[in-house]
């Protein structure tokens, strides 16, 4: 049993955690079950819904498809790591202001996917926004308000709106 476990270091939201995990555990399971970070959601658990999206080295990826052992040494950002000193990230504020949230299940994945997009392309077209979030399933609001929120956040971030 003990030889099955591997010791890995995960840098999550700027904090380094040393964990003993078995190789079959996904990053999503370790984030939720070991670290108590339940922002990343387990939806379909097979890469279709993207509710489990986290940033790994700045890239939006499905945490349900990555083995935790593979995330060893990588820089991981979850939705819990987005606010600073109790202040929401402009993307989070825009989602609230624009009413881009209903049940909230898809929201962490949407926000992090949008963050990866805006980090790579601070001034995306509507088409680029729609393409970026095309894998993030939302079953309540529809996507119009989400797209509006991402546009608003892009404007705020460009004019130096903190964070």
């Amino acid at each position, binding site marked *: 049993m003990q030889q099955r476990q591997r010791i890995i270091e995960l840098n999550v939201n700027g904090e380094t955690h040393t964990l003993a995990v078995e*190789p*079959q555990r996904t990053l999503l399971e370790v984030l939720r079950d070991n670290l108590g970070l339940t922002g990343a959601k387990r939806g379909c658990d097979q890469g*279709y819904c993207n509710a489990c999206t986290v940033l790994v080295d700045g890239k939006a990826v499905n945490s349900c498809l*990555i083995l935790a052992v593979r995330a060893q040494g990588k820089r991981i950002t979850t939705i819990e790591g987005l606010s600073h000193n109790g202040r929401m990230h402009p993307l989070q504020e825009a989602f609230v202001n624009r009413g881009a949230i209903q049940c909230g299940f898809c929201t962490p994945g949407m926000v992090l996917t949008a963050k990866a997009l805006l980090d790579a392309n601070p001034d995306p077209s509507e088409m680029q926004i729609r393409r970026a979030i095309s894998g993030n399933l939302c079953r309540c609001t529809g996507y119009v308000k989400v797209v509006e929120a991402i546009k608003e956040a892009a404007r705020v971030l460009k004019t130096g709106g903190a964070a």
Partner: protein
Amino acid sequence: MQYPRRLPRFEYLEPKSLTEACKLLLQNDGKARVVAGGTDLIPKMKRRDVNPRALISLHGIPGLETISHSQVDGLRLGPLTTLGAVESSTIVTERFNVLYQAVQSMASSQVRGLGTVAGNLCNAAPSADTAPALMVLGTRLKLISPQRERTVAAESFFAGPSATVLEPGEILAEIQIPEVPRRSAGVYIKHTLRRAMDLAIVGVAVAITLQDDTCHNVRIALGAVAPTPIRVPGAEAILKGKGRSGDLFRRAAKEAATACQPIDDVRGSADYRREMVEVLTRRALEQAWDRCPGSTEGKR
């Protein structure tokens, strides 16, 4: 449909070289699987469609994520080169655009950031989008094993649904795409119900090279309409050496529809697929021809 459960236990092996990976694959005698991006394999394991005793991860081996290009060697992709890396590569967009068209149509941005081109090939789904695109680019695949090294043409790589010609202990080590002749263009048309996160009902790839006003070379490949992605040489032969002609495009398209062997499934019926092969092959031929630099249409 089997719902996903937590992954079963397996041994996780991290070789430090491809040779070592091949040896581990051989030692585990068909009970181990190589994992690159994991975007196909992990869900299959969660659904218990496959139950490997060991996973051989290639991620501990340096230098496998390459996209390199030269006039002599053309484009070379490593076994860990992701779909996302190919999608955002300028050289791919500019010179191997048909591959870009295929890759950008796949899954989601998140999955493309993890999944690899090599994995899409080795997974050997009949609908694999990169396969028709790579076939019409004249791609060769380097396969290595502890005993030998060989290269096979992309169209000779597939043996059936989820089956390839890879032998025990053999690994796809490099994707070799020759330089594209100057007056060439390629088109991939993926027929889907949804614009993202969908598999092809039919996939059609065409690459044409012009000389003067005639077709110097043409390759046509189809996805999701046979047990494997296929080339249709009969349709290609109709066009070679000929000028631009709607009638020839129609005949070639009809030949492609005759040559494919589609099945009925949840995404479409065999009859519908055959119809769409004809429509889309003609469309792809027209578009590819007119995108060739110096074509009559291109000049207009």
